[in-house]
């Protein structure tokens, strides 16, 4: 495959796993819009670029810090920046191992490799990664992982593996950025999470790479009984962004919250594919994604909820709402439910509309200028998803970026 010709097999995966991933990569056809899974997202452009492994430095790390109170690790193009990372405040019930630092070779992965081209690419050519173990003793453990793309046609194949032991609590922030002038860079990242019995896990994922960059992100989550898992996916920039989120709910009485917001303009294309697989009974899942598209941007939402046979008493809710600010913006929204049990409470819905002209006029008639009136209405609309975020630093950071990129004020 020509687009991998500048890449070499990863030293951080076992020879066996690397070989398996490489064969899968070679056997997998390049995704086209004829495939259901990629129907609305074209990735043809990626194939034509000869991505390479580039190291880089950080000129000003402060701008990327979302929550200053979190122990933080930095990666540029997938490479660990030890000098800027600070784990001094890390809870000692948590261990964080950078693969390259500890010379770790991953020999197993819960990522599906067959027929999943980007997962296979990620595994075979892994740039670096981290392994996090959150022990039973952790209450309120937290970690911030900041990824920065830099330069021209750099690729970051990065993997985060998080194991949360039974009864542990853990909050993680994942921030994705690019340095000024980054062009045709590609973050191809994966995260594998195991949430143990009665554990509580929150992920705040913030995506803000340049419009000239690409981002494909796959999260696989396995939830045991009585666990609480919440992920907030916030996408405010990035040329092509695809989020694959797959959650297997393996134990009873588990709670799963999937929240997301995307605010797009220019020619951005952002695609959220989510799967919640209820394999057992008595669980609750709630999904809410809200988006605002301006100019020529496109968003895709495909949310799937499975309720397997015998997974009775499942409450599963799914909702996707969109506002189009321009006649040239597009949304492809497809909420799906597949239910094989008969005693469940499930709902799904999708709405797409424009801002209410009467509401804009009402605000204007009170002396609020049209751009500000629109910003008020739009932020009220997506605000429902932002409000799900409990961390105030993350909320504040989002508001700051909305102001920088869209000139919204709150």
């Amino acid at each position, binding site marked *: 495959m020509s687009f991998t010709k500048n890449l070499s097999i990863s030293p951080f995966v076992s020879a066996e796993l690397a070989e398996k991933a490489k064969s899968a990569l070679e056997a997998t056809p390049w995704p086209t819009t004829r495939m259901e899974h990629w129907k609305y997202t074209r990735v043809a452009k990626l194939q034509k670029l000869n991505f390479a492994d580039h190291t880089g430095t950080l000129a000003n790390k402060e701008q990327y810090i979302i929550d200053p109170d979190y122990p933080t690790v930095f990666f540029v193009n997938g490479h660990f920046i030890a000098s800027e990372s600070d784990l001094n405040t890390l809870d000692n019930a948590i261990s964080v191992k950078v693969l390259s630092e500890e010379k770790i070779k991953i020999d197993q992965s819960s990522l599906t490799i067959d027929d999943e081209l980007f997962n296979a690419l990620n595994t075979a050519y892994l740039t670096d990664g981290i392994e996090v173990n959150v022990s039973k003793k952790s209450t309120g453990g937290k970690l911030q992982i900041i990824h920065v793309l830099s330069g021209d046609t750099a690729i970051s194949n990065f993997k985060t593996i998080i194991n949360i032991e039974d009864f542990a609590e853990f909050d993680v922030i994942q921030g994705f950025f690019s340095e000024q002038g980054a062009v045709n860079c590609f973050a191809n990242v994966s995260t594998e999470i195991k949430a143990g019995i009665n554990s509580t896990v929150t992920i705040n994922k913030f995506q803000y790479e340049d419009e000239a960059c690409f981002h494909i992100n796959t999260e696989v989550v396995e939830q045991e009984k009585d666990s609480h898992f919440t992920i907030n996916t916030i996408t405010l920039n990035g040329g092509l962004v695809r989020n694959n989120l797959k959650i297997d709910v393996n134990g009873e009485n588990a709670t799963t919250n999937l929240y997301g917001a995307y605010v797009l303009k220019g020619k951005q294309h952002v695609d959220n594919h989510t799967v919640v697989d209820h394999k057992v009974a008595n669980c609750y899942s709630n999904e809410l994604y809200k988006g605002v598209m301006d100019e020529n941007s496109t968003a895709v939402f495909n949310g799937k909820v499975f309720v397997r046979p015998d997974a009775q008493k499942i409450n599963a809710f799914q909702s996707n709402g969109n506002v189009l600010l321009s006649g040239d913006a597009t949304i492809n929204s497809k909420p799906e439910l597949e239910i094989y049990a008969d005693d469940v409470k499930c709902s799904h819905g999708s709405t797409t509309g424009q801002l*209410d002209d*009467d*509401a804009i*006029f*009402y*605000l*204007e*008639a*009170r*002396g*609020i*200028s*049209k751009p*500000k*009136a629109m910003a*008020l*209405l739009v*932020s*009220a*609309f997506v*605000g*429902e998803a932002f409000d799900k975020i409990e961390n105030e630093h993350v909320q504040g950071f989002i508001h700051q970026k909305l102001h920088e990129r869209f000139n919204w004020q709150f």
Partner: protein
Amino acid sequence: MIKIENLHANIDGKEILKGLNLEVNAGEVHAIMGPNGAGKSTLASILAGKEDYEVTAGSVTFEGKNLLELETDERAKEGLFLAFQYPVEIPGVSNINFLRTALNEKREYHGQEPISAKEFMEMVREKSKLVELDPKLASRSVNEGFSGGEKKRNEIFQMAMLEPKLSILDETDSGLDIDALRIVAGGVNALKSKDNATIVITHYQRLLDYIVPDFVHVLFDGKIVKSGPKELALELEEKGYDWIKAEFA
């Protein structure tokens, strides 16, 4: 304060206003009455700046400025206020946040500093009392889930907060029971001063028992066909609009 001369306006090519003249001075209350379809709400919408209407002739001068050249928000900042017949529900935008934004935009327009949080909250407390609006409603989303009476009281509350020079009350009495009507009218009367003016648009005379006008105008078929003292309203109530129709149609 406002001078409307020979105003003609269309919507979707249909002429609604056909040469309307009206002058309102500071300290005055004018009532505009008329049958359904006469153009009462059209007049209110055009003055506020709604884009659906096309002004084909005439002029509107507000405090020496050509009103028709101003954007909707600029008209409000200059001191024009429209109390909506059907206040819009805006989920997710709190009354407080919305009013503070409006107030500060107006202050900025006039070169004033933004209002402090403390001063603003005091103002909210004081003005919400005026229309007996539950202060809890102030922190809720704009008009969302408000009863008809609460919506109208919220309009007058906003009017009190924004302190306009000219207020246009568009059918503020529609859908109000007698208690709500009394409260709303009480608020309007309390805000009346020698420096501001009010145009009350209504179909019924009932509101004018509470907000006593200095002048009553009858709008019919896009024009003001009759003007008189407050007793004209009583005459209209008694005779209905048919005699107007017979006389001017």
